[in-house]
C-alpha cells in the first residue's frame, strides 16, 4: 500500500494544473501540429518553401542571430559593471536592464521607429553618414537587439556573482596579468551562461512581432519577417498555410534551443 503523504493537496493541485495546461496550451498547440496536414505532405512542403516564405525565414533567423551576437559583448559589459563595480546610479542601471521585458512590444516598436526614422534623434545623424536603419533589414536587427539584451545580462549576472574573486586571486598569485586572468579564468567560467543567454535572446527574437513590424517597413522578399507572413495568411483565411508556417517556425526554434543546449553542455565540461 502507498504511504499517505503528510502534506495534502497533491491530487487537487495536479488536477488544476493539468486542466489549466491542457485547455490553454496543449489542445491549442495540438491544433497547430495537426491542421497543416490538410494540405498533404507535398502541400505543406510547397507552402513553406515558397520564395517569399524562405526570404522571410532567412530574415527572421539571420537578423535574430546578428542581434544576439551584438547583444553578447554589450550584455557581458553591463553584467560585469553591475556585479563588480560600485558607482552612483548602479541601482537604477540594474532596474533599467529589464525595461525591454516590461515595455509592451508595440510601444518599443513605435519608439524605435521614431528614434531611427530618417528624421529621428539617431536616424538623422546616421542618415547623414549614409546608414539607413528604419524600414530596412538593419532596422529589424536593431529592434531584435533591443528585446534580446536583458536575456544575456540576466543569465551572466548570477554566475558572475557566484564566481567570487578567489580564482582570479589565485591566477594573480601565479603571475597572470589582469587581462590573462580575465581571458583564461573568468571568460571560460561565464561560457555556458553566455551561450544560454544568446540562445534565449535568439529564440525570443525569431518569433518577435510587435517591436519589429513598425520599424521593418515590411517589404516582401526584403524586410518581411516570418511571423508577419503568418498574419498575412490568416487574413486571407488560409488557415492550413498559416499553421504550416507556424509549425515550421516553432520546430526550427526548438531545434535551435536544442543546439544551444548541446553547446552549453560542451562548454560546461571541464569546468569545476
Amino acid at each position, binding site marked *: 500500500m502507498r504511504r499517505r*503523504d*503528510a*502534506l*495534502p*493537496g*497533491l491530487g*487537487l*493541485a*495536479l488536477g488544476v*494544473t493539468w486542466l*489549466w*495546461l491542457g485547455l*490553454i*496550451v496543449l489542445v491549442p*498547440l495540438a*491544433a*497547430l501540429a495537426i491542421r497543416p496536414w490538410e494540405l498533404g505532405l507535398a502541400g505543406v512542403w510547397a507552402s513553406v518553401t515558397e520564395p517569399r516564405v524562405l526570404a522571410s525565414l532567412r530574415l527572421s533567423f539571420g537578423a535574430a542571430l546578428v542581434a544576439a551576437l551584438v547583444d553578447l559583448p554589450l550584455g557581458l*559589459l*553591463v553584467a*560585469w*559593471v*553591475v556585479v563588480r*563595480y560600485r*558607482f552612483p546610479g548602479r541601482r537604477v*542601471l*540594474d*532596474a*533599467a536592464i*529589464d*525595461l*525591454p521585458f*516590461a*515595455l*509592451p*512590444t*508595440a*510601444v518599443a516598436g*513605435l*519608439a524605435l521607429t*521614431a*528614434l531611427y526614422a530618417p528624421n529621428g*534623434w*539617431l536616424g538623422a545623424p546616421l542618415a547623414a553618414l549614409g546608414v539607413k536603419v528604419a524600414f530596412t533589414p538593419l532596422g529589424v536587427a536593431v529592434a531584435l*537587439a533591443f528585446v534580446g*539584451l536583458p536575456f544575456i545580462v540576466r543569465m551572466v549576472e548570477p554566475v558572475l556573482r557566484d564566481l567570487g*574573486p578567489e580564482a*582570479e586571486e589565485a591566477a*594573480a598569485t601565479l603571475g597572470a596579468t*589582469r587581462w590573462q586572468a580575465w581571458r583564461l579564468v573568468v571568460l571560460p567560467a561565464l561560457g555556458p551562461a553566455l551561450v544560454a543567454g544568446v540562445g534565449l535572446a535568439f*529564440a525570443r527574437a525569431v*518569433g*518577435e512581432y*510587435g517591436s519589429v513590424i513598425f520599424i521593418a517597413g515590411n517589404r516582401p522578399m526584403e524586410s518581411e519577417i516570418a*511571423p*508577419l507572413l*503568418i498574419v498575412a495568411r490568416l487574413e486571407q*483565411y488560409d*488557415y492550413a498555410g498559416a499553421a504550416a508556417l*507556424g509549425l515550421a517556425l516553432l520546430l526550427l*526554434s526548438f531545434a535551435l534551443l536544442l543546439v544551444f543546449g548541446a553547446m552549453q553542455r560542451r562548454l560546461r565540461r571541464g569546468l569545476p
Partner: protein
Amino acid sequence: MRRPTEEPAWLRWLLCLLAVAVLGVFLVLPLAAVFAEAFRRGVAPALAALGDPDALAAIRLTLLVAAIAVPVNLVGGVAAAWAIAKFDFPGRRLLTTLIELPFSVSPVISGLVYVLVFGAQGWLGPWLEERGIQVVFALPGLVLATIFVTFPFVARTVIPLMQEQGRTEEEAAATLGAGGWRMAWHVTLPNIRWALLSGVLLCNARAMGEFGAVSVVSGHVRGETNTMPLHIEILYNEYQFVAAFAVAGLLALLALLTLAAKSLLERA
C-alpha cells in the same frame, strides 16, 4: 595600491561609462522618444487623445482582459507550484518544461492556435456558430490569447522560492493538526507573498501590453475588440502620431511602475 584582482581606476571608470552609454542609447533613449513624441504639441493634445471615446474603450477592455487573465494564471500557477515544489511525482520534470513552453512560442503563434480551434474554419468554428457563440474576434479570444502568453509568470517566480523553503514548516503545521486550507493560508502564502506579488505584477504588465497574440484574435473592431496596444497601431497607421504616442506613453508608464515595484520587492 590597487589589489591584483582589480582593474586600474581609469579602466573601471571607462567600463562604467560605456555600460551607462549602452543602456542610455539602447534602452533609455527609446523611452524618452515616446514621451517626446507624445508631448510634441504640448500636454493638451496628448491628454485629449487619452480622453477620446475609442481610447477609453481600449483602456477599459485592456483592464477587463487583464482582470480575467491574471487571476486564472495566479490560481493555475500556485497550484502548479504547490505540486512541483512540495512533492515528487512521475512526470514532474515534464510538467515543469510544459509550463515554461509558452515563453518559447512566438506571440503570433500563440494567437494563431486559438484561431485554428475557434475560428470560422476552426475545429469548433461551425459548432460555435450554430449556437451564436463568438470566441475569435471577441472578448473570449482576447482573454485566451492573453492567458497563453502570460502563462508561466506566476509559476516560475514562485516555484524556486517554494523549493528553497522546503516542506518542514507545512509538515509542522500538519503535525499540529492544521487542515490543508488553513496550512496554505497561514503558513505557505505568508512565506511566498512577495514573490507571488512580483509574479502577478510581471504577469499583469505583459497581459496589458501584449500585442502580437491579441492582434491575431482581435479582428480590430474599433471601440469593441481593440486593446490599448492595438489602438496604438491603428492610430499610428492613420498618421495620428501624437495620439499614438500618448497611448504608448501611458503603457510605458505602466512598464516603469512595474519595474520600480519589482525592484522594491526584490529588496524586501
